[in-house]
Each structure stands twice: as structure tokens, then as C-alpha cells.
């Protein structure tokens, strides 16, 4: 008999025990370890993939951010350019205005200077003219001329308008009969007497006459009371002429300004 049934039973039991033992000590732990390793590798790969994804995401984000920054920069650049352009134009306009203002001012100043110069010139010219005239008349003037002037003066005194003579008389009385006569040259005693006689003839006797000389008259004579003056002299003429001349200049300036 090749088969011993007890041995068969025993071997079945043995085999089943071995199955249990190997399951406990071999397959279980080994399979578990392999699964654990696989899981670990898988998790590591997953983690790596996740990291890579994150990195890619971050890269994309950064790229996006960089692009937006670049856009922003471009925008700002354009804006700044525009602002600079505006500023430049503004500055140009301002500068133009300033230049225009300066020019205006300058023109005004030039005009004013010109006017001042012209005015000065006119004044100087007139002064020169009168200075020359005065000198010429002074040099020309002598006693003879004075005599003649005196006669003209006395003639005029005699032909004085009644109301003027009246006014002169009144002011003489106010001054207490005092009368000042000034001439350009010292008068001779005969001339003085002549004048005294003439005046006393006109205004009545008892007048106190006081004779003096004044170079300003150039040639001529002046009768002064306290409030009145009767004069006939070249200086007087020149003064009148000067006044007329400056009046004429002013009239010209006014017409120019208009």
C-alpha cells in the first residue's frame, strides 16, 4: 500500500499549518512591505508631480505678473511721455508768455526810455537854446540897449490900460507908496531921475523909489509893488517862449500817445 491515510491526513494538517505560518510570517509582511514601498514611491511621485504642478502654476503666475508689470511699465512710460510732452508744451507756452511779457516790458522800457530821452533832449535843447539866447542877448545888451528898452518901457507905462493903472495905484497905496525898480544894468543918475519923474508923473508924488540890478532880466526893467509887477525885459520874453515851447512839446507827446 503506497498511501498511508493517516500520513495523508497528517500531511494535510501539516500543509495547512504551513500555509498559515507562511501567511503569517512571509506573504503578509512581504506583501505589506511591498505595498507600503509602492505607496511611498507613488506618494513621492505624486508629491513631486504636485510640486511640479505648483512650480508650473507659480511660473505661469510669475510670467503673468511679469507681463502685467511690463504692460504697466509700458503704460506708465506712455503716460509719463504724455505728461512730459504736456509739461514741455506747458513750459514752452509759459516761456513764450514770459518772453512775450519780457519783450513787452522791454518794449515799454525802451519806449519809456526813448520818451524820457526825447523829453530830456527836448528839455536840454530848449535849455541850450535859451542859454545861448540869454548869453547872446547878455553879450549884446549894453547901456544903450538898456536906454532904448527903458524908453519903450516908459512908453508902455504911459499907455497902460486905465484899469491896470488903477490896480497898480491900489497896490501902491497898500505898500505904503514903496516901489522897487530893478534893471539889468546899474542906471545913471540922469536916467534914474527921468524914471522918477515919469513915475511920479503917473502915480503921484511922494513915492519912495528903490533901484536895484538883476542879471536875470538880461535887458529890461521891472517895477515891483508888494503884490504887483510890471516888467518889460528880454528875459521875460524868453520865459514866455520857454513856457510856450514846453506847452507845444506836451501837445506833441499827447498826440503821439493817442
Amino acid at each position, binding site marked *: 500500500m503506497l498511501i498511508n491515510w493517516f500520513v495523508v491526513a497528517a500531511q*494535510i494538517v501539516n500543509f495547512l499549518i504551513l500555509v498559515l505560518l507562511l*501567511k503569517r510570517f512571509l506573504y503578509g509582511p512581504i506583501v505589506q512591505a511591498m505595498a507600503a514601498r509602492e505607496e511611498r514611491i507613488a506618494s513621492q511621485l505624486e508629491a513631486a508631480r504636485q510640486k511640479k504642478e505648483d512650480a508650473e502654476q507659480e511660473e505661469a503666475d510669475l510670467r503673468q505678473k511679469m507681463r502685467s508689470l511690463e504692460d504697466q511699465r509700458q503704460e506708465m512710460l506712455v503716460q509719463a511721455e504724455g505728461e512730459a510732452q504736456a509739461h514741455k508744451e506747458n513750459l514752452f507756452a509759459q516761456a513764450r508768455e514770459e518772453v512775450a511779457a519780457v519783450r513787452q516790458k522791454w518794449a515799454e522800457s525802451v519806449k519809456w526810455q526813448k520818451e524820457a530821452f526825447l523829453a530830456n533832449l527836448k528839455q536840454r535843447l530848449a535849455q541850450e537854446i535859451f542859454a545861448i539866447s540869454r548869453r547872446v542877448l547878455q553879450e549884446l545888451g549894453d547901456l544903450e540897449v538898456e536906454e532904448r528898452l527903458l524908453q519903450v518901457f516908459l512908453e508902455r507905462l504911459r499907455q497902460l490900460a486905465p484899469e491896470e493903472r488903477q490896480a497898480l495905484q491900489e497896490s501902491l497905496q497898500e505898500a505904503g507908496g514903496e516901489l522897487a525898480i530893478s534893471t539889468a544894468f546899474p542906471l545913471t543918475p540922469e536916467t534914474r531921475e527921468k524914471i522918477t519923474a515919469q513915475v511920479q508923473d503917473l502915480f503921484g508924488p511922494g513915492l519912495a523909489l528903490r533901484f536895484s540890478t538883476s542879471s536875470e532880466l538880461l535887458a529890461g526893467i521891472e517895477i515891483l509893488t508888494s503884490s504887483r509887477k510890471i516888467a518889460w525885459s528880454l528875459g521875460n520874453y524868453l520865459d514866455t517862449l520857454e513856457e510856450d515851447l514846453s506847452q507845444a512839446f506836451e501837445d506833441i507827446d499827447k498826440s503821439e500817445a493817442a
Partner: protein
Amino acid sequence: MEISLDSLVFWRWGPVLLNATILYTWLVMALLTLISWLVTRKLSTGPKISRWQNLLEVLVAAMREQIRQISQEDPGPYLPFIGTLFIFISVANLLAVVPGYHPPTDSLSTTAALALCVLVAVPIYGIAQQGLGGYLSHYLKPTVLMLPFHLLSEMTRTLALAVRLFGNVMSGAMIGAILLAVAPLFFPLIMQLLELLIGQVQAFIFAVLATVYIASATQAHEERREAVLQSTGAKDRVGDQPKED
């Protein structure tokens, strides 16, 4: 010359006995358990592993892959049974190089025991996979008339398993003995090597056949489920048509 290890009895009490087959089986069991325990005591899940762990991992991974390829299913539930069959037979045969050792698979009692285990495991796995009714209906297909033939097939393939392993392992010893008588110097060495190879091949064949038998019992269910799925899919398609109108 002894034909069976069973006749070498060390101790007997009534029907209970302790012979060389059982003793050597225990030896192999103890060796396997000890190695497994020593190695799996400190397993590493990191990238650095010990050589022994590597060896066992390669072994287990290869067995899982084989079972997966043959059964087309998850090897998890089958691995302890089929893997133990392979490892036990393989190591039992491999230890034949040790002087004084006789493989327990040399005994028809051992191979019969293993074949009986497969015989019982097939329905157990089948029932576990598809339920009692589902598995038993498999015997009545295509008709009830096929029941005796199915039963006969179960018996004969179990017997074939047992005898194939026993015959191959025993023949190795027999051939060694005969050649020792004919050509005592050189040939027995070659025959020993051949015997080792045959022992490994037999372990592989036994495990593969056990897998095939178990897979056939569980895959009938898979096929039927696929058929059901297909028929329901067809029904769905038929039912869909009026809706489209």
C-alpha cells in the same frame, strides 16, 4: 531498497504514527518558517532593503505575477495557498542535495495530501467567489447530464496531480538507484542535477495546475457575469430605441 518514506516509522501508537515523511515535512516547515520569521522580523519599506528581504520579495512578486497572468485576477486571495504549494514542494525537492535527507514529496501520501488540498480548495475558492448556488450550478452546465462527467473530471485531475508529482520525484530516486548500479562513477551526479531540475519543474507545474483549476472554478462566474452584462446592455439598447423616436 525502500520505495516509500512512509515505511520508515519511528514511533507508532495505534493508527497514529510518526514516520520519516512527517519528520522531513516538519523539518521543511520549520526551516521555511524560521527563514521567513528571521527575514520579515525587520522589514524595510524604504529604498534600502536587505538581501534576504530582496530575495523573498522577488519570490513573492514572481509568484503573484504568475498567479495574475494565469488567473487574470487579483492574486491576493490565492497567494497563500498556491505560493505555499510551490515553496513547499520546491524546497522539499531542493533539499535533496543534503545527504541523508529524503524529500517528503517522495511519498505518495504527501502528494495525495497536497492533491486533496487542491481538490478541496477549488470548490472553496469557487464558492467564496460566486456563492454556493452559483458554484454548484457550474456542475449542471450545459445540462444536468454533465454532472457525472464534471465529478469524474474533479477526481481524475486530483489523482493526476498526486501521481504526477509522486511519480516524478520518486522516479528521480529510482533512476539514481538504478544508474548507481549500472554506472556508479559519473552518471549519478548528472542524474542528481537532473533530479533537482525536475523537482523545481514539478513544483512549478503543481502550482500552475492548482492555479488553473481554481481559476477555472472562479472564472466561470466571471464569464457568466460578462454574459449577463452583455444581455442587459443589449436590452438597454433595445429599450433605448423607442425613446429616440
